[in-house]
């Protein structure tokens, strides 16, 4: 109990607002780079303009992409908003707008779902409620009331917990047979990097794959805790930097390593954040000497954060309700920090039967989907169902008529032998997506 009391007492204390400013600037810059990179690579067109079909999330079917060229404008807006956040200009507006626009984009198509995009949305949501512009922001010049010298200490913890969650649940998700006792999918992925400079030949060694699997497990599970203690913090952070740089060079995981390296800095004490900001921008003279009344104005934020984290604690475990192997059926797979857990491949064809004429033919989704969509759709059961429905609608609209659609899908996970993923006898046009267990997914056989 004393620990809890201590924590509560500590949470009620005040800390310098520089920590929030520091995190705001880091977040803003990361997202600026991320969005510019996205536009630079031509992904706006590839992911949101070219596709004829979009795989919306269950319950968010009403979220639709804007016609060309407005999707590009959406991304220009994200770039502008990330800069406004960085500079702390019209902060409250910028962060709320950023959260809404970013989340809108992420809801458009499951094929490009990434765990770190989910993390960006969650952090942005939390940041909507926190006074991250208390210091080192342009708002301080314009709006005097935005100036804050001190903020309640728990606000920093809100951000720390959200950053720590990714590691911790990422670790929990690794507690599975493939990862621990077959060193999969790392064995496959490391072997694929056998031409890596210097260490390339090591990467094909089984013991290396096992060592790294177990190391990554303990790293993920312990990182948030070692980062929280003063004595271990700096060492853990060094490990974090090395670990993420390694993943950056070995795997094509984009901004994820950079996000983790920079957001983990929030675990350092406020003094360090203050020193860094002082060094960069000089002493911030725009601070009000007034200290806000303890917590009064923040009770709602505190209550929200509490509910938010209760939700966060439950979400990653929802897949367990379905039983079986989540990597196979993927029910509850997304939004659960299942990061770098599987190498999955599949071959997908649809057997279509026109009800009116009895005509039968086979369709490969590649014909209608972009490459990335076709690949993602091939092994994710809910997407396989969605595309069957899209095809059904397509044949109705194009005058072919009502159809029965069955999927012939063979999938392989983490080097295991391929098997039928979807019951080929089930007419998918009759099945509906829901949170109920999908009985038309075959059982995992190994």
């Amino acid at each position, binding site marked *: 109990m004393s620990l809890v009391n201590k924590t509560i007492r500590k949470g009620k204390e005040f800390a310098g607002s520089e920590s929030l400013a520091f995190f705001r*600037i880091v977040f803003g*810059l990361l997202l*600026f*780079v991320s969005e*510019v990179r996205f536009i*630079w690579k031509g*992904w706006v067109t590839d*992911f949101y303009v070219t596709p004829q079909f979009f795989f919306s999330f269950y319950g968010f079917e009403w979220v639709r992409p804007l016609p060309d060229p407005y999707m590009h404008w959406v991304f220009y807006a994200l770039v502008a908003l990330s800069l406004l956040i*960085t*500079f702390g200009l019209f902060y409250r507006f910028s962060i709320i707008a950023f959260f809404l626009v970013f989340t809108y984009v992420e809801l458009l198509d499951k094929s*490009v779902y990434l*765990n770190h995009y989910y993390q960006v949305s969650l952090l942005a949501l939390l940041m909507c409620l926190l006074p991250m512009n208390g210091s080192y922001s342009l708002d301080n010049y314009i709006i005097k009331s935005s100036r804050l010298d001190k903020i309640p200490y728990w606000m920093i913890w809100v951000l720390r917990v959200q950053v720590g969650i990714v590691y911790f649940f990422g670790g929990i998700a690794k507690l599975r047979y493939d990862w621990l006792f077959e060193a999969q*999918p790392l*064995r*496959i*992925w490391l*072997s*694929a990097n*056998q*031409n*890596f*400079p210097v260490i*390339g*030949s090591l990467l*094909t060694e*089984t013991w290396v794959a096992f060592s790294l699997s177990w190391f990554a497990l303990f790293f993920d599970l312990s990182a948030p805790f070692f980062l929280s203690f003063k004595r271990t913090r700096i060492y853990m952070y060094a490990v974090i930097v090395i670990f993420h740089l390694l993943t*950056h*060079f070995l*795997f*094509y*995981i*984009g*901004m*994820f390593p950079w996000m983790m390296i920079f957001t983990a800095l929030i675990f350092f004490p406020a003094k360090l954040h203050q020193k860094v900001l002082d060094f*960069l*921008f000089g002493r911030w003279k725009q601070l009000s000497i007034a200290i806000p009344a303890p917590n009064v104005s923040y009770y709602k934020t505190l209550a929200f954060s509490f509910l938010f984290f209760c939700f966060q604690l439950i979400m990653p475990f929802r897949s367990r309700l379905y039983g079986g192997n989540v990597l196979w059926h993927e029910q509850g797979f997304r939004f659960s920090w*299942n*990061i*770098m857990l599987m*190498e*999955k*491949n599949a*071959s997908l064809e649809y057997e279509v039967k026109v009800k009116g004429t*009895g*005509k*039968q*033919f*086979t369709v*490969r989704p590649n014909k209608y989907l972009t*490459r*990335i969509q076709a690949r*993602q759709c091939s*092994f994710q059961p809910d997407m396989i169902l969605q595309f069957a429905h899209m095809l059904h609608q397509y044949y109705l609209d194009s005058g072919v008529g009502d159809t029965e659609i069955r999927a012939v899908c*063979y*999938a*392989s*996970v983490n*080097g295991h*032998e*391929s098997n039928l993923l979807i019951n080929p006898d089930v007419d998918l046009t009759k099945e509906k997506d829901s949170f109920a267990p999908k009985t038309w997914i075959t059982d995992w056989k190994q």
Partner: protein
Amino acid sequence: MFKKIFYFLFAAAIIVACSSKDSPDPSSTSDRVAMLTNLGNNVIVPSFEAFSTSSQSLAKAASDYAADTKNETKLTALQTAWIGTATAWKTASLFTQGPIENDFLSSGIYFTTTNYTGIEKAITQTATTIDNAYIESLGATLKGIPAIEYMLFSASGNTAVIGGYTGANGAQRIAYLKALALNLQNQAATVATKWKADGGNYVKTFIAADGNDINSSLGILSNKMIDLIYTIKDERIGAPLGKRTNGTPQPDLVDAKFSKASLTLMKAELQSLENAFTGKSLNGSDGSGIDDILDAAGAKSGDVLLSKRIKDQFAVVKAKLDLITVPLGTGLTTQQAAVSAAYDEVKRLQVMMEVDMINNLGVLLTFSDNDGD
């Protein structure tokens, strides 16, 4: 003060710009480099050389026959030379990455649709001399291996073919045939030269792209292997068998329908897949291939090595095709069960390659970020 943020942005931009090009050390020799070296030097280059050589024989046989158009023996020799050339092309046709695609060469060699009336028109209505330059100016539907096939084989037999060359417009027809063969010989020589170390040396580029992303040699090759196995399943067998037409066979859709060489050519296409997989060169010596990469990674299918499972499946497919004892166009109706069985085995091979093989290779078949999908 905010200048510093701009410096930050600038530095970040530079980091992003630079981090996209990490060139791996070429001196490190790994299984994958060994495989690419073997495939490039001992499988791909010899395949294109063989294609080039056989196209020379075809051109030679064409001019021999042209000198004596009434001679059926020479026509038969020419027909045999055509089958040899078509087979050599199919054995190499998996390797379209590089020169063939960059210079759009495949359309002049083996285009999928042939415009027969267009060919007749080109023969009879032209006022210009029919030579290689004339062929160069024509579209892909009027030339290449399928056009030559159309001009060499007839459902009514060789007498009809000879009649075409000895009757009205016979001189123009034979000139067209000769020019087609010469043009093909040039195309084949171009492809071989571009690949060879003492020519365009694309083989060096092929070996150097030793990463595991979508633009690496292995990435492109595995995508092509999947495309080809689908082509065999859907176009070579499926469509003729009636998979798109409610089970009504479509003999017209078989590959090389005039020469009735569909099965031979299909086996050659399977051979190119098998050669890439096993690293077996044309003379039969077994070098480093995808199978060795899978073995080194410990890839298994159930209790047996995945590579063995796939090699066995190649053998099963070949055995099933051998059970079709008549030309495929006929077999679609008279030996339907055998053709159907072959189709099912090709489907099994397709799943093994597209799913199990790719899964264990860990090559990236898309270009975006991922964090484990």
